[in-house]
């Protein structure tokens, strides 16, 4: 490789890194602004011009971040077969729907609780207080959509990637049939507090991710 080509290669890599880094920074910055604006809006309980300006600023930061990240897509894209491309698209769709559902659960949970404190975002995971029927139905429909997309995504995977996820799933199943009875017996014996299915759910998901990650990068 000539010196000119090497320099051009380094400049290209630097450009990609700067755009990706800037994109991530702006996306996080935008999400931070949005979170702050929503929090302030709940606290004051009314629409103010500051809310609109804040939301517009957050949208601008998010859009610029997304544009920066998408602008390098062509430079780092690798050849992919139609099935792999479809699999990746379905995965991103699943992620977007999941994030939207998470935001809905988080914001909806805070609004329905009426307690805009700094720990309220944890409420959808561990809180068992009643929620509105419409809100519950919306979350359930969203969850069914996420599961349907996930199952379709699973079918688009090649055998190696599927084996990685299935290894994680088996590990998660072992985790579930270990944690559930152990916690239940420990609770009855007065060793642990009453079992919380939400915590078990999160623990099983974490075990699944660990199993998948180990199999993928071992």
């Amino acid at each position, binding site marked *: 490789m000539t010196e000119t080509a090497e320099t051009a290669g380094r400049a290209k890599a630097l450009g990609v890194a700067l755009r990706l880094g800037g994109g991530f920074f702006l996306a996080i910055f935008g999400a931070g602004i949005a979170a702050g604006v929503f929090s302030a809006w709940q606290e004051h309980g009314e629409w103010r011009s500051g809310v609109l300006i804040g939301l517009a600023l957050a949208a601008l930061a998010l859009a610029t971040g997304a544009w920066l990240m998408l602008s390098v897509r062509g430079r780092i894209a690798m050849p992919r077969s139609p099935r792999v491309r479809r699999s990746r698209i379905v995965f991103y769709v699943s992620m977007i729907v999941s994030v939207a559902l998470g935001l809905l659960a988080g914001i909806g949970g805070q609004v329905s609780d009426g307690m805009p404190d700094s720990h309220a975002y944890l409420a959808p995971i561990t809180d068992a207080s009643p929620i509105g029927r419409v809100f519950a139905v919306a979350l359930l429909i969203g969850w069914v959509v996420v599961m349907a997309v996930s199952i379709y995504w699973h079918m688009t995977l090649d055998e*190696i990637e599927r084996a990685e996820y299935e290894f994680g799933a088996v590990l998660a199943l072992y985790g579930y049939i270990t944690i559930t009875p152990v916690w239940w017996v420990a609770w009855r014996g007065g060793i642990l507090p009453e079992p919380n299915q939400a915590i078990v759910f999160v623990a099983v998901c974490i075990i699944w991710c660990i199993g998948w990650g180990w199999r993928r990068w071992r």
Partner: protein
Amino acid sequence: MNNRLKVLRAERNWSQAELAERLDVSRQAVNAIETGKHDPSLPLAFRIARLFALPIEEIFDDGNG
């Protein structure tokens, strides 16, 4: 199981991504097979053999041949 996938790929000057595209699998899948972390299924082994126009046993070796 040992295999000659990396050598065969290098002979054709293909990247892992290019081979993956030809086999209709992900690049990670090609890497997993090349490094011996995963043994391909029989259908995938046949696809690999057809792509390189070689018998399966000239690509994969179970050490008992």
